[in-house]
């Protein structure tokens, strides 16, 4: 099977994330991703996947593949990305996550920062959960939950001074069954490899963690795949069947 290069940014927030700009609507995300030359993106809002399908729909026919995902905050306040295949039923996963979020009555102004939209950028609702909070899932439970839905688990921005597996837990627990670790755009790929290469045998990825449209694509990886699916990405992370991932 012919393999080709796919440029990917697999850590992008939308207007559903309270810290994401409200301008992160599906069409804006898709437009900016295409302008940045991306072939695959993942929509990874904090503790929710509810805007991912709308971004996928907005990208239909553009050649941009959109994977649904989320950025789970664990009990230790470490962030872990869950990346899933298009079409995965994420209802059970969402229910499990929402049940583990703190039951803090949110102010109306707070909820209005958690905008659920359709593919035409129309506002369809507001998420009432405390998405900025941390779940009571341990890092192990979070990884198991992601794997249980066929997803890939990636430790977010492990170079950051807070909210990373390393900042919260000192080092990456060797028995944590992650599929990869991500660094933020604050480090170049070479700097990241120098800083972390000895600490973990896991593949090192670097994505944008975009909260604003102009940040989309500021850090990307190039995958050598047969197609833009999660299974192909899984193979690339494992270095199987000729699939590869490299810094761009």
């Amino acid at each position, binding site marked *: 099977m012919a393999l080709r290069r796919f440029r990917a940014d697999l850590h992008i927030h939308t207007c559903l994330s309270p810290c994401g700009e409200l301008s992160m609507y599906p069409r804006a995300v898709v437009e900016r991703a295409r302008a940045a030359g991306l072939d695959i993106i993942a929509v990874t809002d904090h503790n929710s996947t509810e805007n991912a399908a709308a971004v996928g729909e907005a990208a239909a026919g553009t050649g941009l593949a959109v994977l649904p995902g989320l950025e789970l905050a664990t009990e*230790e*306040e470490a962030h872990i990305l869950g990346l899933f295949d298009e079409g995965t039923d994420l209802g059970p996963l969402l229910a499990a996550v929402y049940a583990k979020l703190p039951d803090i009555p949110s102010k109306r102004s707070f909820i209005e920062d958690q905008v659920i939209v359709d593919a035409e950028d129309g506002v369809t609702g507001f998420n009432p959960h405390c998405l900025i909070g941390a779940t009571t899932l*341990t*890092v192990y439970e979070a990884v198991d939950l992601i794997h249980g839905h066929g997803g890939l688990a990636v430790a977010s921005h492990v170079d950051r*001074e*807070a909210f990373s597996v*390393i*900042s*919260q*837990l*000192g*080092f990456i*627990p060797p028995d944590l069954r992650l599929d990869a670790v991500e660094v933020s755009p604050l480090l170049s790929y070479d700097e990241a490899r120098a800083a972390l290469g000895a600490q973990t045998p896991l593949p090192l990825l670097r994505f944008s963690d975009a909260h604003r449209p102009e940040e989309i694509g500021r850090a990307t990886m190039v995958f050598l795949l047969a197609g833009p699916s999660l299974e192909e990405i899984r193979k690339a992370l494992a270095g199987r069947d000729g699939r590869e991932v490299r810094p761009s």
Partner: protein
Amino acid sequence: MKLSDLAARLDLKVYAAGAGLGREVGGGYAGDLLSDVMAHGRKDDLWLTIQVHPNIVAVAVLKDLAAIVLANGRVPAAETVERAEKERIPILGSAASTYELAGRLHGLGIKGS
């Protein structure tokens, strides 16, 4: 002051490695970012935290801390207790907050840097 004296004075519950309570405590540190504790914790410190992940034991070993005290009634994960027993790192606990515990410890002469 010895760990056993502090445990009695603060009414701390012992979760792991109770055999190691004869150790002398040199000072104190409080923090939930393990990376920060790795940077600033000192040998013989009593460490106050609400983290219960097994990695807390590794950090205590690395920095040669006297013991770990879990605040807010936090209970260590089973694997954390197992590792603490193996590494002989006492894990104690209290229903009091980190702030309250630090205040009481300071009053007993256990100082920070």
